[in-house]
């Protein structure tokens, strides 16, 4: 039996992940370093601490600013990494 997967969108692109994955994990699945946001000077920022402390993985999830490492993926979720 295959592992259950769900579909979400990251910057408009469909991404399939295992149920229970964090949004931080989905960012990695979506590609590369899993960039979550840009700093004020435009540098790419990615999940770092993975436990809700460093605040480097802030993303817009269904219109609200949240931490990718602390958010669990849900079917149809829309994640935006550009502010």
């Amino acid at each position, binding site marked *: 039996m295959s592992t259950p997967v769900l579909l979400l969108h990251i910057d408009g692109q469909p991404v399939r992940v295992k149920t229970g994955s964090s949004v931080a994990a989905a960012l990695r699945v979506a590609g590369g370093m899993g960039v979550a946001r840009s700093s*004020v000077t435009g540098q790419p920022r990615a999940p770092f601490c993975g436990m809700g402390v460093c*605040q480097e993985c*802030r993303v817009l999830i269904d219109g*609200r*600013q*949240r931490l990718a490492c602390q958010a669990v993926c849900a079917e149809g979720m829309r994640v935006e990494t550009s*502010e």
Partner: protein
Amino acid sequence: MHADVIVIGAGIVGAACAHALAQAGRRVLVLDARIGGATGAGMGHLVVMDDNPAELALSRDSTARWRVLAPHMDEGCAYSACGTLWIAANEEEMAEAERKQQRLREHGIDSRLLDAPSLARAEPALRKGLAGALEVPGDGILYAPNAARWLLAQGGASVRVEHAKVDAIEHDGALRLADGSRRSAPQIVLANGIEATTLCPELPIRPKKGHLLITDRYPGTVHHQLVELGYVTSAHHSDGDSVAFNVQPRPTGQLLIGSSRQFDTTDPAVEAPMLARMLQRAIGYLPGLADLNAVRSWTGLRAATPDGLPLLGKHPWRQKLWLAVGHEGLGVTTAPGSAHLLAALMTGAAPGFDAAPYAPRGLLETA
């Protein structure tokens, strides 16, 4: 380097003193223990305060100096000429806004009364039902740690900064450092904020703890620094805990939220009940804050004097020692004016305003 003056403390006040002394032709050595202080913990507001004539003279002179420096500062200093809106919650506070405008006008400070509809247009995120506001367009904000570094850098070869902890000020005015070595100069400036009492226990300075919180980036939510007019009554209690609504739009789009005051604690921990009180106060003015994402909260200690004015001038009995301490929550605002005043006194020049109200006072006679 031979130094004419040693400044203890490289925070905003020490940096401004070094800058002013260098401009007066002095060679300055700045000693900093790198333990951080109010400069790194505060809001970085540049705001004219008018609780009393001395505070008004110092903050007016200082904000004018910041406006002259601002165009030269680098981007890291994050200067923003956002102005302040003093928010009146009711008609009683609106009457206070009018009195405040009158006081400011008498001292040539530009301000403008906003009625309720004008305030709602200026800051749509504020709750409905507020009475109005007084706008002070000459106020601003900056990022004080970088502004302090920038001020020090302006001194060029005339200002040298050394990482060193001063353990004691000896009877002849020489400084004994933690590594056992000594430093001496004809004049010493004590500008290390809350740490000043460790070197001069006779100083009438108490710590006043404050909490701050900063949000994620929400550009355009707020346009001015927002302060409740009730701030004046809540912020200047000499005892007891208090909170006041104070929000700044940082150039990053983040919102910096204050403010709180607590005496008799030096525990740097963020205290959830005090933070909650402060945020409830802020949400009472800006309901939308409740939906925003906070990124960090922290605390700092203000160096508070009994009368709320800094101590600027010669120490009455310690050799060579000059004081630039006790700026409480207004050190970033008043650093350039404080430095100008002290440098004038130290070099025999005429200060631009009366130094008497800030002359060191309330010092115990036994060191």
